[in-house]
């Protein structure tokens, strides 16, 4: 039954599930703080999430943080205990209830994430973040939602807000994620906010039919998100939007996890660089 479900064609009435992966690597965000700090970016992102929820009554959202050494769901989380306790905070007459629930949870969970420094200190590779982990969490989550939705009414997509550079160590797992996304028909959009281009994510966008774009004017982050990454899968059929033309298909070798220009394939599809 589920295998027959059509994820490719989108109807006007379909709900959209947006899985937002935010790269929260604090070290890189500090570097970019001059143009766009994480706090500011988060403000823009929350409005963007609200805009997505505003588009349609039954639109859904999930937010995952890809941190150093760990990836975590910011929304939804199983038991949002802290918020429901103090009732006078539960309803704000100036904000639509759905927006409020999502925004409050994202903010408070983000705080928790940053207060916990133990994983940060123990993890060796501080240059990059757990994009592969976050991607697989996103895919598992969408898969679960799609299975629960029997009539195929929910159309998922993934958006990655990326700041860290590629980590060759994650190449294999990222590629695996890309292939599963491709198979499920889930487009992966990538918004590159800071630092140099990431080859892997560019490939992800290219292979899944998503968009890869680099933010040019940091002050216009929200506007940039609204124009390029807000359109749902139905509207995209009719819109022409800027996309990256050139895609760099370089891989990293499976043996030393290094980026290579020429690789050798064995019959079981692994890549080697023949370096001893």
């Amino acid at each position, binding site marked *: *039954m589920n295998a027959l479900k059509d994820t490719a064609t989108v109807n*006007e*009435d379909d*709900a959209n599930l947006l899985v937002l992966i935010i790269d929260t690597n604090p070290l890189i965000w500090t570097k970019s703080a001059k143009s766009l700090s994480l706090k500011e970016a988060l403000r823009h992102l929350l*409005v963007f999430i*609200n*805009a997505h929820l*505003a*588009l*349609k*009554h*039954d639109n859904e959202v999930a937010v995952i943080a890809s941190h150093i050494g760990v990836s975590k769901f910011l929304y939804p989380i199983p038991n949002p205990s802290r918020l429901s306790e103090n*009732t*006078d905070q*539960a*309803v*704000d*007459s*100036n*904000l*639509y*209830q759905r*927006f*409020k629930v999502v*925004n409050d949870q994202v903010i408070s969970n983000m705080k928790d994430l940053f207060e916990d420094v133990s994983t940060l200190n123990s993890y060796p590779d501080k240059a990059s973040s757990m994009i592969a982990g976050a991607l697989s969490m996103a895919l598992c989550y969408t898969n679960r939602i799609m299975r*629960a*939705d*029997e*009539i195929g*009414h*929910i159309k998922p997509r993934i958006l990655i807000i990326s700041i860290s550079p590629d980590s060759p160590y994650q190449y294999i797992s990222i590629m695996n994620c890309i292939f599963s996304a491709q198979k499920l028909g889930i487009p992966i959009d990538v918004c590159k906010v800071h630092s140099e281009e990431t080859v892997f994510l560019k490939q992800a966008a290219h292979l899944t039919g998503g968009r890869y774009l680099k933010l040019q*004017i940091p*002050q*216009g982050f*929200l*506007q940039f998100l*609204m*124009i390029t990454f*807000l*359109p*749902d899968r*139905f*509207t995209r*059929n*009719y*819109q*022409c*939007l800027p996309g990256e033309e050139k895609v760099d298909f370089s891989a990293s070798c499976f043996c030393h996890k290094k980026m290579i220009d020429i690789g050798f394939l064995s019959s079981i599809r692994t890549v080697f660089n023949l370096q001893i």
Partner: protein
Amino acid sequence: MPTAVTHFKTNIYECLEALPKPTLDQLYKEPATCLAIFRLLPPLARQLVMSLLFTQPISPVNLTQSDLRLWVKNEEEALAKFHEALDKLSKLSIMTTDSSGYIQINSSFRERFQDCLTGGGDHQSFGVSCERPAKDKPDIAFLDRHAMKQWEEILHFMVGTESTRQPSAAVLKVVTRAKLMKEGKDKQLMITNKGFQFLLQDVNTQVWAFLIQYLDIADELLHMNVVEVLNFFFMLGSLELGMDYSVEALTPTQKQLLDDLANFGLAYRRKKGSSRYYPTRLATTLTSGNSAVVSSAVSSSTSTTTGDDGATEQGFIIVETNYKLYAYTESKLQISVLRLFCELQTRFANMVYALITRDSVRKALKHGITANQIISYLTSHAHPQMKKQTPLLPPTVVDQIRLWEMERNRLVATECHLYKEFRNQGDYEMVLRHATNLGFVIWSNAKKRMFSVTEEGHEHVRNYIKKKIAQRKTNGGGEAGSGIGTPNNGSPSVR
């Protein structure tokens, strides 16, 4: 054939479209209303609004319509959608083109909708909650029961179930005004064809149809401000089910409204004059549009607690290819709706077994219910089990219901005038072409040189022929044989 009550989306939309611009500007002062109206727009229009909403703070950009056109693909379908979007936006005066050709977003809409997304301002548009927590808060199941009880009471009254008490004055006014019921011989209210059609709609459509009629009355009879009434409807749509909200924060008009809406089952108050109110599911799903789909998709995980009402909302009808129909319902109302087009056979504790027969469908058709309405009723109330199969309903049954309808219309009669005995093909074709261009021709046959025109076209075509004859006469009848009634033939006999 009376037309069906169209789906609420277009209906409430038409209602808004008819409002003058100042009223719309007033409406856009409430963020909750902005959000609700925004969701009524077609997808591309929503995207256009979002794309332009936050342009102002960075740099004031001036875009013309052709600039916007560059955003959509240069394909026929995409362009059609684009123009539809712009058209709707300008009709609701959300996005208009100014004299110099630049696109302008309605400033109060822009401001308030930004507030809505960012949570800014102090407009209290999304309902003010009570400061003190309620002592014994009714749970969601209770609210659902209350909503269904109130709403079904109205419907019961319409189908004339015994033992229903007289509904409130507002309800009576709405049903008579909307011509859902009319006074019969003995001053007793009787259900009309439109009423039957109304019963077949899903609940959300019913509620909106009802509210729009109410809006009409509110304006004329109760002297309420349309803007306030609409704002209140849209605010109710944005509230959270199971929460309590304060009555204090409402305007006097809205307090008056609340009484009526509580009567319809859209809200619950413990007692009249209570300081808090609870919106019910009928109210909170007002702006969601496709409630039937939503409830089946969402409620499987969230609201197994809703019990009976949840089941009715989700659908309970199973139709088999042999025209047998099983309805898992105990509701008298649903059973009397089914009785409109089915022959009930047996009633069990939790289900009814009925047959769809030629006679039963013909009876419904005679009441003015169309085949399409029956089919859409069966579709929207189909049991979840049925929803898994494609096509949802057995095609044999669907086709047969349509055939039964066509069978009743085996002969189509149109009053008309028949033109015949043209002298030659040229004349015939000339007159026919003229009449066709004006769209009067019902039937024509070149071999027999006959055609018929509608009642209204007759005068026109006759004058045309007379004019032509007059021309021929003045021309001296030079072209022998090609004129309509050449001079020596005298005037045509036009009866």
